[in-house]
C-alpha cells in the first residue's frame, strides 16, 4: 500500500466486518476495485467469514439448556460453601494424601468432581431402573414405618437423613432401601404419584463440600445430582427436565432446613 493512499489494515478489517461508515466504505470500495488483487483477497475474506458464521449459527439458535439458566445457577451459588473453606478442605485432603502416600493423592487428583458426580448419577440411575420396575418389593421398609426407615438409614449412612415431603409436586413417599455403594452404603427413597409414576432419591457420602446441580440423561430416566456437606444427592425420574429441577430444588431446600434447625427466623 503506497503512502499516499490513506487506507490501512484497520480499514480493510472493518470493511470485511462491515463496520465502516458509508463514506469510508465507498472510499475503501473504490480503492479495492483499483487494486483487483487485494480486492479479490478481501472478497474471499468476506466469503469465508460468512461461511464461518453460517456454519456456527445453529448453536446460537438452540434453546438455552435449563442448567445454564441464571436462576438455576444462582440457587446453587447461594448454597456453596465459602471459598476459604473449600481451600482448607483441599489442603486437608492433600495432607491426608501425603500421609497415605502418593497413590492416595494421585487417585484423588485423577477423580474429578465431575467424574464422582457422574458416578453417583450412574449408581442412582441404575438403582432407579431396577427398583422402580419392582411390583412386589419396590421398597425394603415402607413409608408406614417412616420414622424407623429414616432412623435406620441415617445410622447406616452415618448422616442425619430426612425423607423430603414432595406432596406439593404430587409425589408421596413409598419407602426406602439400603444399597451397597463402593466401600460404603447408599440409601434410596422411592416416591410415587397418583398416576403410578415413580421417582427415586439416591444419597451417599461423596466427600464434596458443595457442587452445582448437574443434569444427567440416562437411557430411561434422567437425574439431577448435586453435593452438599460431603453428601451426594441424585434425584431420578421419567419426567421432563423443568419438572425434575423443580423437584430437585425442593429436596435441596428441605435438606438445608433440616441441617440448620438453629438458624434464627428472619425478622
Amino acid at each position: 500500500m503506497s503512502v499516499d493512499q490513506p487506507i490501512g489494515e484497520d480499514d480493510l478489517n472493518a470493511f470485511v466486518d462491515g463496520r465502516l461508515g458509508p463514506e469510508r466504505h465507498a472510499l475503501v470500495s473504490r480503492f479495492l476495485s483499483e487494486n483487483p488483487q487485494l480486492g479479490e483477497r478481501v472478497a474471499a475474506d468476506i466469503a469465508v467469514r460468512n461461511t464461518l458464521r453460517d456454519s456456527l449459527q445453529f448453536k446460537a439458535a438452540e434453546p438455552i439448556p435449563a442448567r445454564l439458566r441464571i436462576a438455576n445457577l444462582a440457587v446453587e451459588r447461594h448454597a456453596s460453601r465459602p471459598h476459604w473453606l473449600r481451600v482448607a478442605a483441599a489442603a486437608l485432603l492433600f495432607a491426608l494424601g501425603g500421609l497415605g502416600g502418593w497413590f492416595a493423592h494421585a487417585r484423588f487428583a485423577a477423580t474429578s468432581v465431575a467424574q464422582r458426580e457422574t458416578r453417583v448419577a450412574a449408581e442412582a440411575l441404575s438403582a432407579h431402573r431396577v427398583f422402580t420396575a419392582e411390583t412386589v418389593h419396590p421398597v425394603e421398609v415402607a413409608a408406614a414405618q417412616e420414622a424407623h426407615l429414616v432412623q435406620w438409614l441415617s445410622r447406616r449412612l452415618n448422616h442425619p437423613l430426612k425423607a423430603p415431603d414432595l406432596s406439593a409436586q404430587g409425589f408421596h413417599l413409598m419407602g426406602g432401601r439400603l444399597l451397597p455403594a463402593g466401600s460404603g452404603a447408599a440409601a434410596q427413597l422411592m416416591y410415587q404419584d397418583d398416576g403410578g409414576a415413580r421417582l427415586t432419591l439416591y444419597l451417599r457420602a461423596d466427600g464434596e463440600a458443595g457442587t452445582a446441580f448437574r443434569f444427567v440423561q440416562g437411557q430411561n430416566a434422567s437425574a439431577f445430582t448435586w453435593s452438599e456437606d460431603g453428601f451426594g444427592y441424585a434425584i431420578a425420574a421419567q419426567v421432563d427436565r423443568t419438572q425434575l429441577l423443580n423437584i430437585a430444588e425442593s429436596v435441596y431446600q428441605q435438606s438445608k432446613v433440616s441441617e440448620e434447625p438453629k438458624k434464627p427466623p428472619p425478622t
Partner: protein
Amino acid sequence: MDEIAAILEPHIPGLRRYAWALLRDREAADDLVQDCLEHALAGWHMRRRDGNPKAWLFTILRNLHISELRRRSRRGTRADVEEADSAEAFQDADPERRLIFRECLAALDCLSEEQKSILLLVGVEDLSYADMAKALDIPIGTVMSRLSRARERFRQAMETGSAPQLRRVK
C-alpha cells in the same frame, strides 16, 4: 437476581456457540459455559460498571478455556475432540452444506488458539475491536495485525481444503 439474569442471559447463546466452536463437544462446551457463568456470578460485584458485560463474559470464558488447555497439556493428555458431535449438528443438511461445514471446522483447527478466538469473537460474536484489545490485553493496532493474519491463515486453509496432508502426498 432477575436483573442479573436479564443482563447475562442474552449472551448465553453466543457463549455456547463460541465454546462449542473451541471444543466441538456439546457437553464439554456447556460445562465451560456453566463454569463461565458461575465465575461471572461469583465476581459480579467486581465487574467494571462502565465495561460491557458481553466482552467481560467472553473474556472469562476464554481464560477458563486457556487454563484448561494448559492443565491438559501438563497432564500430557490430548483433547478428546470427536467429530461425531460436529457431524450430528448438520445431520439433516444437504451433503454440500455438510461438506462446507466440515471444511470450515477443519480450517479453524489450523489456527492457533489466539487466532481462533480473534476470528470467532470479532467475526462471529461481533465483539468490537476495542473490546477485543481489552480481552487479549494488547493494543488495538496489534489486534488489527493479528486479525489480518488469522484471516489470511483461515482463508488459505479453506482454499486448500480440509486435507492438506493428502494433497502433499499426491
